[in-house]
């Protein structure tokens, strides 16, 4: 199994993500440059956090037009796994691979802190090593993480069980004060209809070693590895 971590100008979690996949989890991992047209035979593409193109225009709005992202789009349409973390999630929204958009955080502040998220759907390739209802302690670091979707789109996400993570308190309760950025339905992460593209705002790569205060983020990468080893995709 081979991971590819995309580098845009302004990405700043690319090396952390690479480190976790390669050194912590021992998986073959390569960097993919945004100007290239070649995915170098990877099985899973990770769009890392950061500020691609300086967040100019809107977060993720310019990155979606880069040459490599056209390959990523085709790869996703073929069923390839794509994981978008933070800015990577914003890019997937702008690209249209995931529904909805991001607004400024409700308190108009950049938030950089540990939060709790609850696994809402453990029957995905990104969460199969977890259990439904498990609470993960993972940091966030974003200004535009206030998830918004038009009413019909939101209803569709609920109906098809595509909300994968919600902000919660440490005990897994969904509450207004645990919804740090004001996201609709406390949404922290969603998956596409095909079950192969997932975006989330928290940073699992920053919570994959006990030295950094939490290993809870590893379960997402381990799920992807387990999915690959099992050799089949779980139906949602």
């Amino acid at each position, binding site marked *: 199994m081979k991971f590819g971590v995309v580098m845009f100008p302004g990405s700043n979690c690319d090396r952390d993500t690479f480190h976790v996949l390669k050194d912590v989890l021992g998986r073959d991992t390569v960097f993919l440059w945004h100007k290239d047209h070649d995915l170098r035979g990877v099985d899973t593409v990770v769009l890392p956090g950061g500020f691609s193109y300086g967040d100019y225009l809107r977060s993720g709005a310019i990155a979606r037009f880069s040459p490599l992202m056209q390959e990523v789009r085709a790869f996703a349409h073929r069923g390839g796994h794509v994981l978008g973390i933070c800015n990577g999630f914003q890019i997937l929204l702008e690209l249209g691979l995931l529904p909805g958009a991001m607004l400024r955080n*409700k308190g108009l502040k950049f938030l950089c802190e540990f939060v709790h998220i609850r696994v809402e759907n453990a029957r995905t390739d990104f969460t199969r090593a977890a259990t439904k209802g498990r609470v993960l302690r993972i940091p966030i670091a974003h200004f535009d993480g206030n998830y918004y*979707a038009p009413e019909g789109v939101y209803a569709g996400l609920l109906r098809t069980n595509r909300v994968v993570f919600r902000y919660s308190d440490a005990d897994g309760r969904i509450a207004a004060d645990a919804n740090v950025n004001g996201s609709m339905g406390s949404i922290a992460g969603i998956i596409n209809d095909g079950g192969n593209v997932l975006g989330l705002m928290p940073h699992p790569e920053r919570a994959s070693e006990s030295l950094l205060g939490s290993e809870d983020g590893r379960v997402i990468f381990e799920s992807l590895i387990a999915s690959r080893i099992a050799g089949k995709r779980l139906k949602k």
Partner: protein
Amino acid sequence: MKVRILVSFKDSVLDPQGQTVKNALHTLGYDGVREVRQGKVFELELAGVSEEDAGKLVPEIAHKVLANPIIEKYTWQVIKD
């Protein structure tokens, strides 16, 4: 030809920055300000484009790039010097 495009949040989308500006104006005593919506302005200089062509081109650019149609709307006009 120069065109000016104004992008702002749809009415159905909360604009917390606009709200904050409104609250600040109220603090300063401008009680008559009922609502503030914040947006972005783009000025494009178009070469070799007729006004008729611009009528197709500008909405296409606004829809595809300048605005995110899920949360934003836009208006535009030709700027006469």
